[in-house]
């Protein structure tokens, strides 16, 4: 990031190569639509470029870019005023990440349905920690909550996910 701030195009390409897939999955989770995620991804990196001077090297790059992606999503949601539409589209279950911890509990589709049934706050904290590997302190900084609240959301999310998967399994048998 420091090389990028110094004017290196290669450094930007490296950052994009390392972060774009995960950021796209995160945006896809937030937006609930993969086609919207592509647009938002491009906009995230464009905003990152325009605001590269705002990056402080003492922060880790990943949470900073994820926070920026969340910012871009929220700004777009606010502008488009289509939150309701986004919520409805969750029924479509797009490219929802599947937690490695949960893979033994059910099929990918079941896990996706389970995550979709969680509250947005719980699902976000759960995925940021278990899927993308952020610490609770990093999640707290991105979401504007305390580290304890981030831990509680992720933990409650996992409990609810297990319960949702158990219900699905019971319903099937």
């Amino acid at each position, binding site marked *: 990031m420091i090389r990028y*701030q110094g004017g290196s195009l290669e450094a930007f390409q490296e950052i994009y190569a390392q972060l774009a897939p995960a950021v796209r999955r995160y945006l896809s989770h937030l937006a609930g639509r993969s086609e919207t995620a592509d647009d938002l991804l491009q906009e995230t990196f464009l905003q990152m470029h325009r605001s590269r001077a705002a*990056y*402080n090297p003492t922060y880790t790059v990943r949470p900073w870019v994820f926070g920026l992606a969340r910012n871009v999503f929220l700004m777009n949601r606010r502008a488009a005023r289509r939150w309701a539409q986004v919520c409805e589209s969750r029924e479509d279950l797009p490219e929802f990440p599947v937690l490695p911890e949960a893979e033994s509990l059910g099929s990918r589709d079941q896990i996706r349905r389970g995550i979709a049934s969680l509250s947005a706050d719980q699902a976000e904290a759960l995925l940021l920690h278990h899927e993308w590997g952020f610490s609770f302190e990093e999640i707290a900084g991105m979401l504007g909550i305390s580290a304890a609240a981030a831990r509680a959301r992720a933990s409650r999310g996992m409990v609810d996910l297990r319960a949702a998967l158990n219900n699905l399994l019971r319903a099937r048998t």
Partner: protein
Amino acid sequence: MMDRSPKPPEALMRAVAQDLKPVKPSQRPLRLAIETAPCALLASSLILLAIGIRGDSGILGPLMTWGASAAQFTLAIVLIWVAAHESTPAGRLPKGIVYSAAVAALFVVVAITLSTFWISPVGSTLRVGGPFPVPPWIMDLVCGIGSTAAGGILILLFSWMFRNSLAIRPTVAGALYGAGAGVAINAGWRIACPFPTLRHALGAHGTAIIATVLLGALIGRLLGNRRLHIGSKRP
């Protein structure tokens, strides 16, 4: 071996390549807040340089005159520090801290105003008036507009300093910068204002702080919308 790492789209690369001038990395929020202190102190002190200290400073004593203003000024820097955190995507503070800082600012300003009035009730120390009495509403207007204008200048300065910030809630961040500016300016005006009635202190000076908060929120919102507008013009 073929490189399978994802490549930025052509249009994005073009946009990035067009503007690759080196930039100076941002400082930590605390450092940014401290850097604003000299300007805030200057803007806050201008009124003291212009009309001097209030007539009843002897009754109030150094603690209630300079000490209370120093405490208020420190609180203003804390508000700017909270606002700088709010403007950082990966460094936001919990909402509880943000709202507590705002409530603490309100509480401290009101408590200092009430204590000042309690120690030195208005009357004998008025310097305005004399042979040509000035109606109170004119003093209200002068202090209200004057301190709002001084706060407005600080807000414009903050807007420039934090123009690259990436606040998720730009209106909240702007309101916090505005509160910081308003409280900092009031720290200077409270020890210069020659019309220290409780109604004037809470009414005119309080309204000026509220006005700077609203102005900051408005500028934050405008800057946030502008960024959104620029962002929507995708390459």
